[in-house]
């Protein structure tokens, strides 16, 4: 495949550079990787080429990247802490509409570590006089950390169980799928509500016994040490979503493994005496990863949405933790007068989740080999004609 025939735009050059950089890195770790995976690298470049041709995909990618960047640097960028009540400085800060200017001065500013001066509350303040912009920035961190914690464990329980069920079949398959059925017998949100309601006391006890784990999560969520209490209910949501988020993957992966294991390469690996674990993770999983990746992307947004919903219902984030769903819940008491406490956090959730859905939807097309072949075909036709 000669690369010159493609009309490469700036974006393509960028994505090629990223892929090349990754390939060189892999080559450094395992010499010869680049040469062995030449066709794979070409295929990746073609995928990026197809992705770059999809405006929704690019919009989605921009949304995701801005969300992740804001979630990482947001807490440092925020003008105030998530729990700072500006009413200390100016009583007008309570339920201040967007654009209100408040003056910060006096000894209190020194004590609280805020620089004196005039601040414009771009997005207004909530009923406690807390700056909404700062809370939204901290809220991005909360959302991202919860979503990563959920996605790093939940789906993988399902993927591994699905691989085992599909590969072994028989009684093991039957057992795993019956258990999966039981979990699928509940609507996800209901089960999540129930577990995030009953789990916090237990997690609280666990955190008290493991101060290092507690401190780790406090840093991760960018919380002050005195807010270790509300941490338990945030982690309860994570555990509740693990419980809810694996069965779908188990069913999906089992189905794909069932058809994949019939392939000759699996038989060859088995004949060579490759351990089962290796066959599952190194042979079958990479071959079914495409559709899984699409679902993982879509569900990343789904987790953010569900978590916000739980917080809206009063589960999960407890005051004073900044969480998008919780901000809307607290603001709803003053609806419709304090519209900004509902409009902006909702917009933040919407744009973030939309980003993941746009990218997921585009990935579905890009990972479909038919799309890539049709691009090659078009290019070929163009060259000949």
């Amino acid at each position, binding site marked *: 495949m000669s690369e010159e025939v493609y009309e490469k735009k700036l974006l393509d050059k960028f994505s090629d550079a990223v892929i090349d950089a990754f390939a060189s890195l892999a080559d450094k770790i395992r010499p010869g990787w680049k040469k062995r995976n030449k066709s794979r690298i070409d295929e990746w470049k073609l995928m990026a080429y197809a992705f770059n041709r999809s405006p929704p995909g690019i919009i989605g990618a921009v949304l995701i990247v801005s969300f992740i960047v804001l979630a990482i640097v947001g807490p440092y960028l925020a003008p105030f802490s998530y729990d700072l009540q500006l009413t200390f400085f100016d009583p007008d800060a309570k339920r201040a509409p967007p654009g209100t200017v408040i003056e910060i001065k006096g000894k209190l500013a020194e004590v609280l570590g805020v620089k004196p001066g005039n601040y414009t509350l771009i997005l207004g303040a909530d009923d406690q006089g807390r700056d909404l912009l700062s809370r939204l920035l901290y809220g991005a961190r909360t959302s991202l950390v919860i979503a990563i914690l959920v996605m790093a464990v939940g789906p993988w329980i399902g993927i591994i169980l699905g691989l085992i069920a599909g590969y072994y079949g028989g009684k093991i398959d039957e057992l795993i799928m019956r258990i999966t059925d039981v979990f699928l017998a509940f609507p996800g949100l209901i089960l999540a509500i129930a577990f995030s309601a009953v789990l916090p006391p237990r997690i609280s006890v666990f955190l008290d016994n493991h101060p290092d784990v507690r401190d780790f999560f406090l840093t991760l969520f960018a919380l002050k040490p005195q807010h270790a209490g509300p941490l338990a209910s945030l982690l309860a949501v994570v555990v509740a979503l693990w419980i809810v988020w694996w069965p779908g993957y188990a069913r999906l992966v089992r189905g794909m493994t069932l058809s994949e294991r019939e392939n000759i390469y699996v038989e060859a690996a088995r004949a060579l005496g490759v351990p089962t674990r290796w066959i599952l993770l190194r042979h079958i999983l990479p071959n079914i990863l495409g559709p899984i990746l699409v679902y993982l992307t879509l569900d990343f947004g789904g987790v953010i949405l569900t978590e916000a919903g739980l917080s809206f219902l*009063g589960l999960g984030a407890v005051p004073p933790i900044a969480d998008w769903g919780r901000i809307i819940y607290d603001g709803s008491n003053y609806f419709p007068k304090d519209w900004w406490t509902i409009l902006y956090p909702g*917009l933040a959730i919407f744009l973030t989740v939309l980003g993941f*859905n746009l990218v997921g939807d585009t990935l579905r097309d890009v990972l479909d080999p038919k799309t890539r072949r049709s691009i090659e075909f078009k290019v070929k036709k163009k060259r000949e004609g």
Partner: protein
Amino acid sequence: MAELRRFLVRRLLTFIPTLVGVTFIVFVIAAILPADPARVWAGGEKASPEVVQRLIEEYHLNDPIPVQYYFIMKKLFTNTMVSPVTHRYIWQDLMTFFPVTLQLTLVAFFFIIVIGIPLGILAALKRDSLLDTIVRIFALIGVSTPIFWLAYLLIYVFYVKLHWIVLAGTPTPPYKITGVPLIDSLLKLDFQTFAQIIKRYWLPGFVLGFAGIGVVARIVRNSFLDAYSADFTEFAMARGLTKLRIYRHVLRNAMIPVVTVLGLMFGGLLAGAPITETIFGLPGLGKYMLNAIRLFDYLALTGSVFFVGLIYLVANLIVDILYAVIDPRVRY
């Protein structure tokens, strides 16, 4: 026909272990109680030790796990579970709260079918047109919108600005046939009550169904296109059938996967109800669950989770059976 019967028997047999599993999960929820539920139920720190002791005995809180499991399941299945907080029969409570959720779900379902299916067919007929793109984007927007946010935006438009909706009260007619006022008023041809209910429910129903509309439109579009490229369609074209008649054939075949998705979605809508009910102040199952959580009434919570699980399970069973009946090719 014999094959269908065998399928039904097999499907019913797998229903039983699943139900047992459901009871296990329900029990786990009840078992992860906070440290001292009896004290909380009796009124916190100031509770008298006798009352706490009585509650512990009454609800078998200190008994071995199997005894607790037996106790909870016996009470749930015989409908004799009494809430330690409200002192009411939980099953009876569920029966009064459920019709509200069901009505809400029915209205949401109505929107999904009436908007989603035609939209999907139009998108398929005008494939790759602007309309098709709009439907695709609409579907993505639908699943990305937090429904609690959408609810407030729409309340602002339709309640604060336009006054098109009533947000208080739940009309209950004086007669009772099925126990669901929406259906009862239709059966009795009592259009005044029916209109009242619709005025109260249309917006919450729309909010609840919003995400589903786009999803169903996408599925209808894709399965319509699949059926359109099938051999039988080509044959129908070769025979020179009119376009309209071809579309009728296509539609019938395209509806098969749609029915399954709609069935599964019905259960999903029931689950999505807590948020909608909270915002619109509808006294439904979801509201009941959240109230139970607020009052530390874990047995009512357990009871409602069990109830929802049961309904979901039965709904899926009906979908599977319907699927086998509609599509004669499907055999398991």
